């Protein structure tokens, strides 16, 4: 469907990657850890390696959670936009196919939240 209007209606997306000054958006969801109310929205360089992204962006973001301390990203089972995903930590986000506005889902065996996922 499309907008009903009195004229030919067209519009440009407001959040094109070009508007982020060389950076991109990456969302990250850590299921069963509802201490954090929603997935995180991060700004990252497409050239940043997946390993750097995990250690420099994700780790400080989740630090307040008791299960964050010993988290080993090497054990992580990832999803990219809800599909199974095996990123190479040495390659960049772009090379791994983590495009602008991609949603990453992080699951680490044994770290299933506290109190049944309430925290």
């Amino acid at each position, binding site marked *: 469907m499309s907008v009903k209007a009195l004229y030919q209606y067209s519009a440009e997306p*407001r*959040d094109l990657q070009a508007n982020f000054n060389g950076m991109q958006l990456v969302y990250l*969801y850590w299921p069963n850890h*509802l201490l954090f*109310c*929603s997935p*995180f*929205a991060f700004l990252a360089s497409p050239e940043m390696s997946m390993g750097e992204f995990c250690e420099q962006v994700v780790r400080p973001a989740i630090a307040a959670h008791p299960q964050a301390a010993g988290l080993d990203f090497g054990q992580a089972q990832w999803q990219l936009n809800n599909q199974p995903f095996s990123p190479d930590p040495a390659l960049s986000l772009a090379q791994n196919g983590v495009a602008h*506005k991609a949603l990453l889902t992080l699951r680490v065996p044994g770290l299933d939240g*506290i109190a049944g996922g309430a925290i």
Partner: protein
Amino acid sequence: MATKNKKLSLKDKYQYLTRDMAWEPSYQKKEDIFPYERFEGIKITDWDKWEDPFRLTMDAYWKYQAEKEKKLYAIFDAFAQNNGHQNISDARYVNALKLFLTGVSPLEYGAFQGYAKVGRHFSGAGARVACQMQSIDELRHVQTQLHAMSHYNKHFNGLHDFAHMHDRVWFLSVPKSFFDDARSAGPFEFLTAISFSFEYVLTNLLFVPFMSGAAYNGDMATVTFGFSAQSDEARHMTLGLEVIKFMLEQHEDNVPIVQHWIDKWFWRGYRLLSLVSMMMDYMLPNKVMSWKDAWEVYYEQNGGALFKDLERYGIRPPKYQDVANDGKNHISHQLWSTFYQYSHATNFHTWLPSAAEMDWLSEQYPDTFDKYYRPRFEHWQKMQDKGERFYNNTLPQLCQVCQVPTLFTEHGDPTQLSLRTLEHEGERYHFCSDGCCDIFKYEPEKYIQSWLPVHQIYQGNCEGADVETVVSKYYHINIGQDNFDYVGSPDHQRWQAIKGNRPLGGDDDSRDAA
């Protein structure tokens, strides 16, 4: 019994106002005068079938509105002269007013503009009169709300720049975008959105139990403006129901269009009202009714009666009503958890519910509170007791349509977030629900333009790259005054002084003292 009317009957007076004072154009085409009346696809064959059961004429309108204003302002004066703010239940309550002033009052202004516009654009004089009266009502609402709040602004923080904040602050994009969505639609969709879905189906939840709660918390000024505004609402609600019936009776082709709008605006309104759910359950120190009970009375029961009545036109209850009904057990807790963790970026304070309040929540929400939400609050309490009050120092993902952080959980699985995503013309978009995702799919060109506060910060459009700069410079929130936890805030200290308690030293027991 003789009828008492010696002059014109109500029906006659109304007929003169809405029919006989209108005219047929002679030197301009009707389509040129009313250019917005057809493009939405709504077919009107006979505007004379328009009925306004209140049949209010201008003389009666001014008479009754003047009387309402006189009563209202007498109470405002009394409230201010007697330092009414000192008689509220607790200063935490004022935070609900801060949210109201920045989130709701500007919508009243938006409604004033919206009804003025559609009141110009219908060719039926009856509809024009009803919209114009409502437009004036809405202007009255925003003015009386500002006057009521101006007293609180003298004594509490966070109320100083509501219009600026409404345009910029992250969570206020939720109400703002809701109204902008409605106002940028055609006139018939606007009326379905605001008059029917919002006024008739949903606003009772804000203006009836919440205002009763204001009274129960000693806020004479707010309950009075709330109920004074709501006294206009009986007319507005009636307009909402009549406009739906009118469209449905005019042409059968209107039925699917109206049904789609009802689906869309029920869901938009439901998401918007999630803000009210936490006001009811968490921000009223003296509780009057849980959000769940209010939802059952004012949506399930009343909405049920309404949609049964509309069955005869081929209208069914809104899509995803079942998801919304399930949400009554969850959304207030989820919203409060969100605002608690982002309280450094709000113009109002948050706090953890006290032990007694948590017991009340357990009682009201026996199936969900202890299982899913109490452990989170107790965890935060432990952190707070250690001096590590939890703030989430990241930015949240927002829904492309409702603009609420994607914080809602799946229908039937309250430990998993409800996340939806799709690609449209090479761009990826994210949603909080099937309801919002469907709205996007129907008019993607509209929502690809959403001004999402988180993305705007990251694009560098908000005067700073870090939260502190954005909050202070771009939002005009005074750091350390307006934001952070209630405990220990200047508002809290002022309240302690008003009540003659010792000044706050940051002791752990201070929360219970409040």
